[in-house]
């Protein structure tokens, strides 16, 4: 069982509790040990680095140092902003003149910058094979089989490439691969890496409404039944704010965390995945998908039975034909 440090970040303990819940549930199911870093603090998100570069490096560095001191070489930061800030801090300390000495001094203890940072998508992507196996082996039919899902990466999971470095910054595929591993179909759409408005959620909501609108429209136009995200701010901007940007009579677009999606495919209960906490209700979608899956499985079963019955009947005919001395080949073969 792999064991990694877990940095939830402020959002996962608050407005995006469901991301934390679903991640823990899925990690347990996949045999990934998550140990929350003791006494972790805020990474500073946008407010840190946009106002002071050093602060923007020091705040995440404290958590990297904690993970290091607590004996870990890898930390998972599901929130895209936390992931980006921690990775950026790691890179800055490794490459910017003087930071390697300055940061330990600011923190007040040594720090070797030895911890690697991953996000939730990377974690799940690395576990794709296990996910596929478990989905195939699940008792209940997979509600996500063949469902069209749009992978929304947002801006901080893949940019800048020097900081993130694990997927293509223009046409990323890691989340799409996870969608496929769950049996769903990834949608080919155009707003995969366009910003949702991020930190302006509260302070400049009109920008978020404009940007979010374009994202949801495009996903819808390409046939997505839901949008998959891996960032609490993206989720909040597209979910909590969806009502404000929606037009009359429009079908709501459910927004799911990537961990919730994997959880559903693995057969975990929606309540364990925090799916009741969304502003855009996920219940109708899940109910529909579960029914679809049940119907699909039933139809498959029926088709199998019919095919078996036909084959049996054919075999019977041939036996009879042989016994009667005629070669029932040509006629018998007609009954297709």
């Amino acid at each position: 069982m792999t064991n990694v440090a877990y940095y939830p970040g402020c959002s996962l303990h608050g407005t995006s509790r469901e991301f934390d819940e679903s991640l823990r549930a899925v990690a347990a199911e996949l045999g990934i040990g998550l140990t929350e870093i003791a006494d972790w603090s805020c990474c500073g998100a946008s407010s840190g680095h946009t106002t002071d570069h050093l602060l923007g490096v020091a705040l995440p560095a404290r958590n990297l140092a904690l993970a290091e001191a607590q004996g870990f070489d890898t930390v998972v930061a599901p929130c895209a902003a936390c992931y980006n800030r921690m990775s950026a801090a790691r890179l800055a300390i490794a490459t910017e003149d003087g930071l390697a000495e300055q940061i330990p001094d600011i923190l007040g203890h040594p720090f070797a910058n030895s911890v690697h940072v991953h996000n939730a998508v990377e974690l799940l992507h690395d576990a794709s094979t296990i996910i596929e196996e478990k989905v195939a082996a699940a008792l209940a039919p997979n509600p996500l089989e063949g469902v069209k899902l749009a992978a929304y990466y947002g801006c901080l999971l893949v940019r800048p490439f020097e900081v993130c470095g694990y997927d293509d910054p223009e046409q990323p595929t890691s989340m799409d691969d996870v969608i496929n591993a769950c049996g769903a179909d990834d949608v080919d759409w155009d707003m995969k890496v366009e910003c949702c408005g991020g930190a302006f959620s509260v302070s400049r909501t009109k920008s978020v409404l404009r940007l979010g609108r374009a994202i949801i429209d495009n996903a819808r136009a390409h046939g997505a039944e839901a949008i998959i995200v891996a960032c609490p701010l993206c989720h909040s901007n597209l979910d909590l704010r969806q009502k404000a940007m929606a037009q009359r009579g429009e079908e709501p677009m459910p927004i799911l965390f990537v961990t919730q999606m994997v959880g559903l495919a693995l057969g975990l209960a929606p309540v364990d995945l925090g799916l009741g906490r969304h502003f855009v209700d996920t219940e109708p979608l899940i109910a529909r998908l579960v029914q679809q899956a049940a119907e699909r499985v039933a139809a498959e079963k029926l088709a199998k039975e019919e095919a078996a019955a036909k084959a049996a009947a054919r075999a019977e005919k041939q036996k009879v034909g042989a016994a009667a001395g005629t070669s029932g080949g040509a006629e018998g073969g007609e009954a297709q």
Partner: protein
Amino acid sequence: MSRVGVFICHCGENIGRTVDCEAVAEALKDHPGVAVAKDYKYMCSDPGQQLVKKAIEDNDLTGVVVAACSPHMHEKTFRRACDQAGLNKYMCEMANIREHCSWIHEDRGEATEKAIDITRTIVEKVKHNKPLESIRIPVTKRALVIGGGIAGIQAALDIADGGHQVVLIEKEASIGGHMSQLSETFPTLDCSQCILTPRMVEAYQHPNITLHTWSEVEKVDGYIGNFNVKIRKKARSVNEDLCNGCGDCQAACPAKRIPSEFEAGLGKRTAIYVPFPQAVPNIPVLDRQNCTLFKGRRKGLAKVACGKCKEACLKGAIDYDAEDTFVEEEIGAIVVATGFQLYNIGREQPEGLKGYGEYGYGEVPDVIDGLQFERLASASGPTAGAILRPSDGKEPKTVVFVHCVGSRDPEKGISYCSKICCMYNAKHAMLYKHKVHDGRAVAFYMDIRAAGKGYDEFSRRAIEEDGAEYIRGRVSRIFRDGDVVKVWGYDTLSQEQVVIDADMVVLATAMRPQDGVRELAQKLSVSTDEHGFINEAHPKLRPVETNTAGVFVAGACQAPRDIPDAVAMASAAGAKVMSLFSADELEREPAVAIVNENTCIGCMNCAKVCAYGAIEQREICAVDGHVCGHVAYVNPGVCQGCGTCQAVCPSKSVELQTFTDEQIFSEINALCYWE
């Protein structure tokens, strides 16, 4: 007894300001073996050289040392002067008291002492100099031109018209290169094939030109004037002597949907094909990769999967069992004219380049490149000259032309400007507007580079007369949105974002060297730069020569350029070749290594370290013919005089003339012995 003349040059102030030249002359006057020592302001000038010549005559000098600048500058000058005065020119040496002394020191006293030391050292060397004669090597007056595009054709024609034999090889089935794919050429809007095909035919029919198409260079041995080139003639599966170009085989071929390389993927061809109707030679080639019969063979089928072309051929020219053959030619000079390819924006890239994910990695329908647009515009193209977009054949009413895709983009790996795109984009906008009068042509550019004759006027015509909209700003994203291609650009002059819903987008992608050029360069011992362009010998003064004597370069394989510049360069390379061929023999400097066969033990250490492959093993035979030993032999035509063999020889049997062990040790002794 040595009688050495020593001449100290002031070089104006260059040496004279820092070194006391009179004092140097004074110091050398009394040096053993020195007959005369003088100083003068400008030794390389006419009076200066007269000074040397007179001194040789008056003092019956046996050697000359000129203490002045670097031998690179004036060794030839002074050696010529000595030669004219009757002294073997290799008895003349230069002592560098400029680059090695006056230019790098400030203290006059110390610099003068050093200048005296340097001069004394060379005097001691010269005492051990021997008279030498230039090496003369014969020249084979046959040229090889690699590449049958417009540059290769021009070079071949010039050399052939000059009365010499030319072997022209081209890796495709026909000569013509990319110019044959163009619709019209700027700035005259001449039909490209109309001006090119007469040249192609001329080259084909020229009595002095031997054309090998569907062929590549396999191996190159030898040296200037004496190359031996092995050419691989790839299996055409069609006998060139029997085929009469009737085309029946192509009509009969059932595999009709192979993407045509000539049509840049926009049209189809058959498996046995001639790339375009005006191909030279008009002899088809069989694409074994896509041929049904050969696919069957690869699968191991017992039955012959197809044979329609062979059945249709009345001349019996088809041969499915043809193999690659080899031709060896004796060549005196080589011209490399391999041309270019266009950069593509896809995901898969050679090392050092990145694709354009923001423009869709080449997977967005109706986003094409410049050559593809040429095929659309061409009357002989897949749409018979109508501008129709590839996805649905509809006429696009809004076309966006994007400049600098790849070019001037260090992040993608190409920092240079491709030179031709501003011009051909203007041409494309004009051609489009000429054909689609109500169409909208929008060009996103950074700067307009239209430096040739009539070029700026041409480029302005597109805007002023044909109504093309030029927006200054680069494009951030290109993606498909339903029926249109969305282009997110910016107008830096009006300061606003610009979003265009285009029906078609044409990307002006960068010019790059062809694949396989680095390997070819290795075979020729020429170097390429970091982008793969062939390196010229000197960027200003020797643009058509390479650093390998006898190998010249012309056209876009050296750097991005347009047709007139490629033609000019090809003629220049042709002139260099003709100048090489103007004498029956080539003179080479005798500064080559010579093996003393008496002391050579045949260990061949020298051959192992020779970077030029100049050293061979030679048998020593007794009078009755039996082999009694081996020694090394240095080919004086190939040896570049680097001296590495001399350094590794355990028996001290090989020495570089003009830098023998004796000469070098005498220099060292001079430095150590004299205070």
